[in-house]
């Protein structure tokens, strides 16, 4: 049984394949006919194949004188065997008629069975083939259907993502333009201040020298007053005048004033220089910078914004040079620091640490402010998202930071616990593609 099935699978049916008589007709079909012939008076009825091998036998050869009628069995018009009906010689005519009836019946069964087999075989072949083809078509359709469904499902998400990207990009551009404008303004102001500041410092220095000469002269006069040749009245009036003009205080204060003025001018000079540096108006779009320096520069610019009593704890480690647009990077630091400052007005502690690990620069800003509530934590990098009052915040600060950092292949993440502050961690790959 198993063997038969295996053959059926392996052998391809060929329309026209030759069939043997015993393939087409079964014992159950043929034996009742032969038995019927014997019952009707024949001694024996035999069907043999073309090689005279008996296929079906019924009854036995009669003894004595007997008659045998032999008729060919046809299949598809070809003689493939014979029917032999034997009986008593005296029944010759009867046996002939019986044989004729028998052979017609057998032919009819053969013909009907063959037709049925051919029909069934063709039908099965065609159905199997069609089924295989349908399976294949179905398989391909399923693949394409799932692809289209995936496309359809993702389309909305994709559109949202793209829209978001565009919004970010647009916002980023606005921010960059704003920065450029501020930078130019700062550079212009700095340039204008630098000139007067130059002659102020220079003049104060010269003035300091002049003053010391004058002081020398005054000291000389004072010493000369002690001469015995000077009349007492002159000495006395000079003393009175000196006291009235509080020249003791003035001569001690004058140096302090000059010193403070010089220090003030120096500070202005530094602020202007930081402002210029911060805006990086003097540099091209890209430069190799030291991030530690840039953070300090940002802090300097923010000096007036940082509330009194704020404690800034720095933990800097040496960093490799980082190639970037320094103005953009400073803007990132500025925005994060500003957020920290605004998060807590009093007793703010700001920890800033930098480090270098696995070819990535890691910068961390931690504050002890209010923290960022969990429900908005995922939204803080969204453009125009702000918790500040209308007009106070643009909702662009962290968006710009995000754009800048990811633009350099870096990451920016926030960890926060409500009322325990927030930590922004920036990583930047040193070797960019």
């Amino acid at each position, binding site marked *: 049984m198993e063997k038969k099935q295996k053959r059926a699978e392996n052998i391809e049916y060929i329309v*026209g*394949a*030759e069939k043997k008589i015993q393939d087409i007709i079964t014992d159950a079909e043929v034996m009742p006919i032969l038995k019927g012939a014997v019952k009707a008076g024949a001694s024996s009825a035999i069907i043999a194949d073309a090689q005279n091998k008996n296929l079906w036998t019924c009854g036995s050869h009669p003894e004595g004188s007997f008659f045998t009628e032999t008729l060919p069995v046809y299949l598809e*018009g*070809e003689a493939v065997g014979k029917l032999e009906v034997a009986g008593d010689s005296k029944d010759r005519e009867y046996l002939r008629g019986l044989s004729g009836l028998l052979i017609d019946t057998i032919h009819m069964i053969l013909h009907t069975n063959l*037709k049925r087999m*051919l029909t069934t075989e*063709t039908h099965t072949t*065609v159905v199997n083939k069609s089924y295989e083809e349908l399976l294949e078509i179905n398989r391909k359709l399923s693949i394409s259907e799932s692809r289209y469904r995936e496309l359809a499902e993702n389309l909305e998400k994709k559109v949202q993502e793209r829209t978001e990207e565009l919004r970010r990009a647009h916002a980023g551009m606005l921010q960059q333009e704003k920065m450029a404008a501020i930078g130019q303004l700062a550079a212009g102001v700095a340039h204008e201040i630098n000139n007067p500041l130059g002659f102020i410092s220079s003049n104060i220095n010269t003035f300091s020298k002049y003053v010391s000469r004058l002081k020398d002269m005054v000291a000389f006069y004072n010493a000369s007053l002690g001469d015995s040749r000077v009349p007492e009245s002159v000495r006395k009036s000079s003393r009175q005048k000196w006291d009235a003009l509080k020249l003791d205080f003035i001569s001690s204060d004058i140096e302090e004033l000059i010193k403070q003025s010089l220090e003030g001018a120096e500070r202005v000079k530094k602020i202007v220089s930081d402002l210029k540096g911060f805006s990086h108006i003097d540099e091209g779009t890209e430069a190799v910078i030291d991030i530690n320096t840039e953070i300090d520069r940002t802090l300097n610019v923010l000096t007036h914004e940082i509330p009194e009593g704020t404690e800034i704890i720095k933990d800097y480690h040496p960093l490799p040079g980082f190639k970037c647009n320094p103005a953009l990077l400073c803007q990132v630091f500025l925005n994060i620091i500003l957020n920290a400052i605004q998060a807590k007005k009093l007793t703010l502690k700001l920890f800033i640490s930098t480090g270098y690990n696995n070819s990535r620069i890691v910068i961390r800003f931690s504050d002890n402010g209010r923290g960022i509530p969990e429900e908005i934590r995922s939204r803080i990098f969204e453009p125009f998202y702000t918790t500040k009052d209308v007009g106070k915040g643009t909702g662009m600060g962290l968006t710009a930071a995000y754009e800048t950092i990811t633009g350099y292949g870096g990451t920016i993440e926030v960890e926060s616990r409500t009322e325990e502050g927030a930590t922004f961690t920036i990583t930047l790959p040193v070797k960019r593609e």
Partner: protein
Amino acid sequence: MIEYDELEKRMVLKLVYYGPALSGKTTNLLRLHDLLERKGRGDLMVLDTKDDRTIFFDLLPFFLVAPSGLKIKLKVYTVPGQVRHDSTRKAVLQRADGVAFIADSQLSEASNNFESFSNLEKNLAIVGLDIEEIPLVIQFNKRDLPDIIPEEDIKRVWGPSGMPVLMASALEGWGVIETFRNLAELAYQHIDKRYELKENHGLDKETFVLKLTRRPDEAGNNTVKNSIRT
């Protein structure tokens, strides 16, 4: 070739009548059945059809014996012409030794003819037969109808292919035997090349073709001795 048994001296060949739906493939076989001598062939077996349309195939078997004793059985089949029965066409076309392409001469059927012919080309390739090699004759049937494509047009289009092109009206009974004869000749040449029917079996082309295409009035001269049903 369906089978060749050297020991039993038996060869079974297959010829296939191909063509578009309703071009007259079954009618061709019916006419061969009616016109040819009963000796040397079996009866036409028409498998179950629906509304006179072939859905499986029709079969007309022929028999002849070469002087060497080689028994040759030639089975002539029709395929179902309707487009939907392509799998059946492929099954019937397997191992064919020759194809008669029955085209419909009506002008309105021109595109169906071309479609069916390219289907034949495709299916021959699928069942592993080379269209350049296989014996192939073209019959333009239904010449008795009006609005048919002119013979000179047919000759102009098909002439360069080198294939025999025959005009016929299966309904009126002419051109049918000529088509079969042409196909038998080509099939003989094809088989002779490989099996040397003349050299090894003493069967020449003329005898082969004559035995297959004998009309009843010619029968008296050539009696077939073997066990052929009458």
